[in-house]
């Protein structure tokens, strides 16, 4: 989750008048971009998948990580197109390096070991395996391991190993498959659910809202198997269905995989996905739904009675992609029903049940495969519960409500989408500047934490580079 500030509005003008960019920051970004501008090469793409397919990144992505129709089919079919077996080209690396400036500093530091404001961080460095394992049986993988430069530790990250087969059902073309993965929604073909949804890059040093839905919280804390299929009921109309069943990681394994203490959840966690996609010429439209149900133990417990949390979501995406531009519009709404049948009797919540809702609307435009702009609106709202949301300096909710509203504007420059530098043809990069503006934060616009901090104090400017090679 991340939040914004109006890029072009009066508040932003004031913001940029008062705060000048550090010269070393601008020189650093220019130094990275300049060689690519001066010495372009024939288009190359996302490292591992691009090396396998020989396609430019624009074939699969609008910028990245948003998928195009080609990218969705590539993923659906098990990451095997264009490849046969693993080779060194299926290995890749990525780094996110950024500068974070909050409107108001955070006393004590943005994170342990970081300044109270205006801090650089190589916040994420990842290694990947991406592509075919054995194309003859449709086996391929996306495996990511990440070094968290803020928490200073390695952990497993998005993982999706799948086997996909073509077939026929009612004389219609079908792809069906089996997936092992570690996050509900990481298998998704559209960039609407949280796993691959907006914001695509967020500052690990910024101060985010307290409330988040369960489906967001389970990423990398679970592992599971899923089955999926996509059927073309007409050449232009596809129905996609998926059912995954997760278990929470055992505590020791959770530590071993670098994600800290386990999230104790009883039993199996089902995740269901249904989507319909219509495509025509350069356009595609998707509408869908997904759901997740789990039974977490109350905070601090690993056995006994459990709560019951149900996430129900609706999502939609439209894309219009031509050689010169790509437009993408997305919407995602999650309604979470929280039944505190175990926590409430223990006094951990103020209510026996609550609701939490999140709405995200995103519009992206990419011009000439180089210049991107994305505007996003996010609204989190739900029941007030002082047991869940308490007054705490900086991170608290003084009125006990989860409500947060944010606007995010992101400007991107992709120097290598139309040609990589000669010294590293597989290099891809995204130079970004992202501004997040909070009209309300953790329930209120002013004094949201009970210690006098206003929502606007968390307005965040985040700029830097996302490198992949």
């Amino acid at each position, binding site marked *: 989750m991340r939040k914004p500030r109006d890029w072009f509005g009066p508040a932003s003008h004031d913001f940029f008048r008062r705060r000048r960019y550090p010269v070393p920051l601008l020189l650093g970004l220019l130094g990275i971009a300049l060689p690519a501008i001066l010495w372009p090469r024939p288009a190359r793409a996302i490292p591992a998948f691009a090396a396998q397919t020989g*396609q430019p990144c624009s074939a699969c992505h609008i910028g990245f990580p948003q998928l195009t129709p080609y990218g969705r089919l590539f993923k659906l079919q098990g990451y*095997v*197109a264009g490849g046969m077996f693993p080779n060194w080209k299926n290995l890749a690396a990525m780094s996110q390096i950024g500068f974070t400036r909050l409107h108001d500093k955070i006393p004590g530091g943005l994170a342990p070991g970081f300044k109270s404001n205006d801090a650089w961080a190589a916040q994420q460095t990842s290694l990947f395996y991406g592509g075919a394992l054995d194309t003859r049986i449709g086996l391929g993988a996306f495996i990511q391991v990440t070094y968290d430069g803020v928490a200073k530790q390695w952990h497993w990250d998005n993982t999706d190993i799948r086997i996909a087969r*073509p077939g*026929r059902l009612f004389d219609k073309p079908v792809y069906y498959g089996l997936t092992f993965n570690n996050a509900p929604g990481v298998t998704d073909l559209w960039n609407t659910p949280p796993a691959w949804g907006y914001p695509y890059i967020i500052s690990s040093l910024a101060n985010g809202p307290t409330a988040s839905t369960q489906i967001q919280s389970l990423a990398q804390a679970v592992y599971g198997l899923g089955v999926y299929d996509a059927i073309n009921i007409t*050449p*232009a109309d596809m129905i996609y269905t998926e059912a995954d069943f997760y278990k929470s990681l055992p505590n020791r394994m959770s530590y071993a995989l670098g994600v800290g203490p386990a999230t104790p959840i009883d039993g199996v966690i089902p995740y269901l996905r249904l989507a319909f996609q219509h495509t025509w*010429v350069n356009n595609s439209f998707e509408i869908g739904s997904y759901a997740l149900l789990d039974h977490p133990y109350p905070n601090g417990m690993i056995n006994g009675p459990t709560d019951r949390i149900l996430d129900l979501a609706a999502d939609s995406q439209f894309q219009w992609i031509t050689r010169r531009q790509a437009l993408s519009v997305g919407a995602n709404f999650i309604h979470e029903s929280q039944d505190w049948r175990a926590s409430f009797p223990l006094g951990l919540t103020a209510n026996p049940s609550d609701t939490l809702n999140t709405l995200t609307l995103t519009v992206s435009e990419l011009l000439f495969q180089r210049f991107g702009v994305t505007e996003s609106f996010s609204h989190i709202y739900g029941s007030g519960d002082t047991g869940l949301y308490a007054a705490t300096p900086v991170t608290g909710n003084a009125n006990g409500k989860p409500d947060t509203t944010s606007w995010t504007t992101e400007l991107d420059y992709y120097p290598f989408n139309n040609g990589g530098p000669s010294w590293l043809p597989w290099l891809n990069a995204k130079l970004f500047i992202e501004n997040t503006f909070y009209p309300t934060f953790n329930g209120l616009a002013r004094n949201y934490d009970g210690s006098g901090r206003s929502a606007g104090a968390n307005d965040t400017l985040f700029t830097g580079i996302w490198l992949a090679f």
Partner: protein
Amino acid sequence: MKRIVTSALAAAAMAASAGPAFAAANAAKGKSLFQAQCAACHSVQKGQNGIGPSLYGVYGQPAAAAPGYQFSSAMKSSHITWTKSALDKFLANPQKDVPGTKMPYMGMANGADRQDVIAYLATLGSGGK
């Protein structure tokens, strides 16, 4: 009305130029299917490769022959010649026909539709013989 007559004549001309092998197929309908299903990745202009290779002159040509396009090793070693039957088999299920091809298209299930598209492809460039 004049436009309808012109379109009908053009469709008839295309079907005729595709040759007797496509007598039952409809190249005009194939063009429409092509534009809806294939044109996002494939150009029919000579030498104009996109996500997929240009399909100018593809009919009757050996696979992986389009100049300037980086084909998968699977396609390069397929030794396919794009005859009517070869195209029909490939379009029905590309990944099944040539595992490892870059083309992740799910396939065109309807045989008549495939024939129409093939009839259209046969009208392009040096193909159609």
